[in-house]
């Protein structure tokens, strides 16, 4: 399974999680969802590489905390932050914390897929 075909969704909103999972699976991606950031962090060591779709604003552990933790663990997978704010500072903050990019809700699945592709190609380029 190519890593860019593997998606992990971390979002506390039921609706978003389920709808997004359906949408992405229809696009041929393999999707696994997590309701809580803490659940994902617990599981991550046992997961195969993939793209992390991380919601910024979650009750309990929020997106930035998860992102920082992933950076601390030097996880090489791209993390795309989903924001509802749309304020550039927040996005920039996410990127400076290690996110590959950020995307505002609601978004087109095509936009999302482009982010995913670019994220992996950027990573590949960086590695190279």
């Amino acid at each position, binding site marked *: 399974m190519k890593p860019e075909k593997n998606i992990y969704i971390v979002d506390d909103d039921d609706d*978003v999680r389920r709808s*997004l999972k359906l949408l992405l699976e229809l696009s041929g991606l393999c999707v696994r969802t997590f309701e809580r950031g803490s659940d994902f962090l617990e599981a991550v060591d046992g997961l195969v590489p993939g793209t992390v779709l991380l919601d910024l*604003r979650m009750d309990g552990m929020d997106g930035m905390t998860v992102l920082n933790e992933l950076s601390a663990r030097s996880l090489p997978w791209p993390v795309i932050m989903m924001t*509802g704010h*749309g304020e550039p*500072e927040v996005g920039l903050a996410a990127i400076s914390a290690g996110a590959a990019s950020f995307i505002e809700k609601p978004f087109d*699945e095509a936009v999302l897929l482009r982010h995913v592709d670019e994220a992996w190609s950027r990573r590949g380029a960086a590695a190279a």
Partner: protein
Amino acid sequence: MISTAPLERHLRQVREALSRIKETVGRDGSGRGAVETLEDHLASLEAEMLERELHLQYQRDLNPQLQWIADPAGSLIAIAGRWDRLTGTPNGSALGDGWRDCVHPDDLPIYDEAAREGIGSGTGYEIDFRVRTADGDYRWLRSRALPRTDADGKLVFVYGYTEDVHEHVLAEHALRESEEHLRYTIELNPQLPFRADADGNVVEVSTKWMKVVGANLDSLLGLGSIDFVHPDDAERVGVLWARAIQTGQLLDSRYRMRTASGGYRWFRSRAGPRFGEDGKIIAWYGVAEDIDEQVRIEEAKAEAIERYRLAGLATKDIIYEWDLATGDIQWNGAIALLAGDDASGLDWWRERLHPGDRDGVLRSLERFVAGDDDDWRCDYRFRRADGSWGHIYDRAHKLRSAGGAPKRVIGSMADLTDRDEAEKKVQQLRAELIHVSRLSAMGAMAATLAHELNQPLAAAQNWVSAARAMIASVPGVPAPALEALAEGRATILRAGEIIRRTRKLVAGGAISRTSEGLAALIEEAFGLLKVSEGNRDVVFEVALPSVRVSVDRVQIQQVLLNLMRNGLEAMRQSDERRLRVEARSDGAWVEVVVSDTGSGFEEDMEDALFTPFRTTKADGLGVGLSICRTIVEAHGGRIWVKSVPGSGTSIHFTVPLADAPAEAEDEDAVTAAQPEEAADEA
């Protein structure tokens, strides 16, 4: 006093013998002539004796003294003198022990004792004693007695004489009494007397000086006392003394003198000259007085007056004193600042009252002066030096004399005009702040709404896209169905755009971040809350490092006010009401904690707290905390809650530290971008 009876007897016998001789001798002859001569001499002798007797009697009558002879046992043998006139008892009644009946019973034992001793020792005695007079009073007599012994040394007689010393004794007593009196008076009198000669040399000082200066009295004589005077005062004192001696003018000088304890105390010396018969000064009599306490009190009073005057200047309050008896009114210097240099009295003050206030003020003042109240308060408009009307707050207090009649009024006039203006400004700023806060709150609310709406919109978007994707692969689906779904997707996207645009519009562009002192922000928030009635008994605590944070001032204050108000709300029913704000730096962030001592809440409520429209409050929409979250997260920070049921709640949030200018520049660049976008969309 000795009886003449024996002498008379002898003379009689001589006369009788001569008679017999004459009979014997016959009628003629020289023998008879001799006898007749003897008879003549005898007659002269008897006449002489009689004459002498008369002399003695007269002398005795004039002589107030009593002469007496007593036997060795003290029993009177004979007494000459007017015992009867003195005691009212017959002369004879004094004989034997009869005299004892007239002696004062208290004095008898004393008399006997003295007599026993004096006679026994052979030296005699002298004793004062009282005797009862004809009037029934007692008079003082003095007896002097001498024993007479015979050739063998045996006591045979006691000779004595007694005189009336009553006035004398009383005078002595009076003198002694007055001496005692004087002594006590001098002892009690704190003054220290001294006497000097005409040249100013001290010749006598009261022994009291010794106790005061703790030195030998000799050291004070002559001009020695100057050694005890404080070096700074010595010269002046010397000059004054010399001048007094020279001119004969009264001396009155103050100086410090070294006392027995080693310290210096203030004394005052006054002295005046005593003139001799020739009009020249023969001595100086003076007293020195310890006035140290007086001086200290005077100094303290002067200091207090000075402090009072300075305090008056410092407060710029005008302080006045109005003598009700004379009508004279005095203001301190501060009056010039208010109303110019020509403050001249009550009329001047009256004239400067605003015409609209004058009648009321004067009537109120009149009532105060005449009435029972001791305090008066009045607000009025007063014409200031520059012609403008000042708002004066006048407070006065009535001072009464010992009898209770009003004597003086002291008061202060405070110019509140500036304060009024400042208050007006504060109100204005408050209104502005509220207005801006509302706008800012609206912006925050819009952001919250935006986010909340975005979730379901995003999901809807996904569902629609998924549906479209599923349908697209099914053959025979009518084109309108696909179109409808496509429209649906576009609509949702448009909805999202609308929300975004609206938010940006209301927010008025970017959050403007500035470097703010954290402590100042928190103090301002406290300030707004402290004045509220319900918060009077709340303890407000801070524990803050002095850091600066990069925040949107108004928005972060919104957060602070919101959190604090929630805290105060939570503590409303609590016994202990303490609102505490602390902060600590953590890398590039500052973690701020707002905690209360309210009832706290259960763990499962924590997550729900930030969900909008979820509230336990009867009033309020419950958007407060979610707005806070929006703002905090917009700053890149986090916000979370910790609570212990029954103990209190603390809300933590992080904000960025204001640091290197480089970062600020980036933010400017970022914030600059948005207005452009807003312009585009507008």
